[in-house]
């Protein structure tokens, strides 16, 4: 954990296995519902928890980059190392689908990402660009956040998150 917390956003996805960490404390779980209204309430709370999980992940990614508390393992995260920040697109509703048993869920939403490219190659163009003091460049692109979640004994955790 301490080693993980030293890493930055650019390299944390390269780290090995990471112990699962409780994510979002569940209020009454859907499985415990005794009637439809209780089930609907539980589903709403699950949706809110997962949305909060995504928002928390993005906020931490944009902050110190230590997203370990949100994910089941570092291998679950598939983000291009050039991505240096993520801005969720609030203008479009995310799509969230729960498995029949309510133990897993899949999420899709849109985001705008900032890409930072370092010019480290040996092409003449890169050499001359570096020579001018322009060793890197940032750009923006629209990406789809695709995430999968699993319910644990203590709440929801991200089992896979990719920017496509």
């Amino acid at each position: 954990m301490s080693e993980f917390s030293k890493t930055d956003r650019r390299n944390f996805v390269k780290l090995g296995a990471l112990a699962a960490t409780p994510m979002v404390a569940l209020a009454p779980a859907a499985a415990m519902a005794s009637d439809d209204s209780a089930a609907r309430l539980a589903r709403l709370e699950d949706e809110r928890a997962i949305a909060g999980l995504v928002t928390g992940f993005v906020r931490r990614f944009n902050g110190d980059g230590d997203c370990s508390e949100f994910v089941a393992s570092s291998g679950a995260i598939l983000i291009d190392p050039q991505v240096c920040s993520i801005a969720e697109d609030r203008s479009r509703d995310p799509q969230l689908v729960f498995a029949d048993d309510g133990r897993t869920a899949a999420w899709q939403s849109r985001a705008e990402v900032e890409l930072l490219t370092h010019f480290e190659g040996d092409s003449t163009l890169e050499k001359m660009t570096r020579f001018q003091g322009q060793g890197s460049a940032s750009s923006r692109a629209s990406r789809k956040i695709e995430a999968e979640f699993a319910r644990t004994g203590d709440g929801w955790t991200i089992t896979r998150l990719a920017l496509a």
Partner: protein
Amino acid sequence: MEELQAYPDIPLFRYEYTDLSLEEVTRRLNAPALSGPQSLEASQDLANQVLHFRSEDGPDLDFHFSPEQRVEVGGAETAYHALALGDVTLVSLLIPRAASGYALAWDRHTNQATLFEFWFGNGPAPRAREINRAVWHGHIEGDEPPTGEPHHPTLRCEGRALAWTEDTGNRTLEYYCSVTYTHWVELDRLSDSRGYSAPADYVFLTEDLYLFSRVEAEFSGMLHLYVMDANRLESVGLRLGFNGADELEYYMFHGSAEWLGQNARFEALGDFSATPLAMPDGAKGERRIYRPLETMDKMTPEEVAEVIAAGNIHVFDRDSPMAGNGTEKSGAMAGKTFAVHYDNGSRMEYRVTGPETLEWRMDGRGGFTEARYNAWEVMPGAFIFGHLLEGLPDHDCHIVVADFDAGLATNFHGFLNTPYFANEAGAETLFGKLVGDGIPDPGTRRHERTRDLLGRAFTWEYSPGLNSMHLYSTPNTTSWIIPTPSGHFATQWSGSGDFVKIRDQLYFARWQEEACNGTLGTILINMRTMHDAGIGYHMGAERGLSLSNVGAPARHAGKIDVDRFFGPDAWERDA
């Protein structure tokens, strides 16, 4: 070393300029300093005048002029020459025994002034023969304060081109295609119609008058400086430095010009800033001068062979930053069987076995060899594709444009083991025809070299933050210029080029990065879609032998009218 030549008959990047010592430079400057610069035009007489040059952040210098073109400056007495252009007087002088000097551009009407301070040796230039300069803007102190706009760096010249004829008879094309560099073509003293690039200064004096200088860094190290009147197309100037025969050239000249046009510049409208590569903490006179030979791998044939034998070969297997905005490669050649009959007699047979694999056999010898290729269909029926010729001693590549509708093919044949650096790509252009079922026979018709691109400039947006502009400055020169994020085009270099018309608005172009990274760059330019696709061929010590894709959308920056300056055989050159 061959015999010294003042203006070499080989490309300047191949010429071995003498590494003159500072002592030798100083010795050679002494007598000319005392007699002043030569000139065909009599000097303006400044006798008995005193000019007190004052600058905000540079030197204060007093010029005490006396009869017979003598001047005392900084405690030293020397000779000067002064030529006037309109209200501006350009004074030039060298300080005896100091290997230094000045050029003062003084606007007699406003008393604004710019001082060029020169020195040889002790840096920042790496060699004593390469002149250093520092540019100081200020005024001439008098009874009345200066009027008008202070002199300042400018981008106003960017994109323009002029054809100069000096009173010496020397003719030069000058492409002012950058804010910090220039590209010039000597039409008389050099014979092979090449253009070269050099760091430059551009100073706004008035709306009509500009002060320009270039230092032929990486070559002779010579200074070429002039005040030019953009309206009247005249100049007065100074040439100072040592030519290829190590002879001092120290003369002033009067020039007249033809206006050739202006290619677009790309700063935001309203942005007139002109110091995109400023070095506020740099040493006096320091600026960003691109010295490509310093950073180029320089390998022997044995070293090249060793890297390749170790398997450090990459054929379209890595992401290319030169193609971040490239177009999709095409698999449409898969299944084709055809041959290219080149006019030099060679025959290349192809069996295209897949979207990225083919088999080739040259001149009917032996069996077919499998190779990986990539192809792009840049215009319907017209492809560019490339592959290595594994097993050949010079590690050749063929980069071919095949027009299956016309039955024509042109090959930019690349190879290593040139006489200069084994890892530097050489190239030749081969014309031929396609032969195969369903391919029309063009008879004797062939793709031909073209001047349609001559004088044109295109920007290329390869990847975010990786952009350049090409200027096809002569029939055998491709120059490339690198922009800053603000859209100022800045550092520039150039190499051999060749240009072939494939169809209307479809051109096959190449550049060789000679004595500069060694790459052979090839692109098929579609001026209808304003996009290209191409292939780079490169050999390096660490990253090995590679073919990689090139591709970018283009902007047409314009076309400079220079056709009439080049004879029919100007594409021929000895690289």
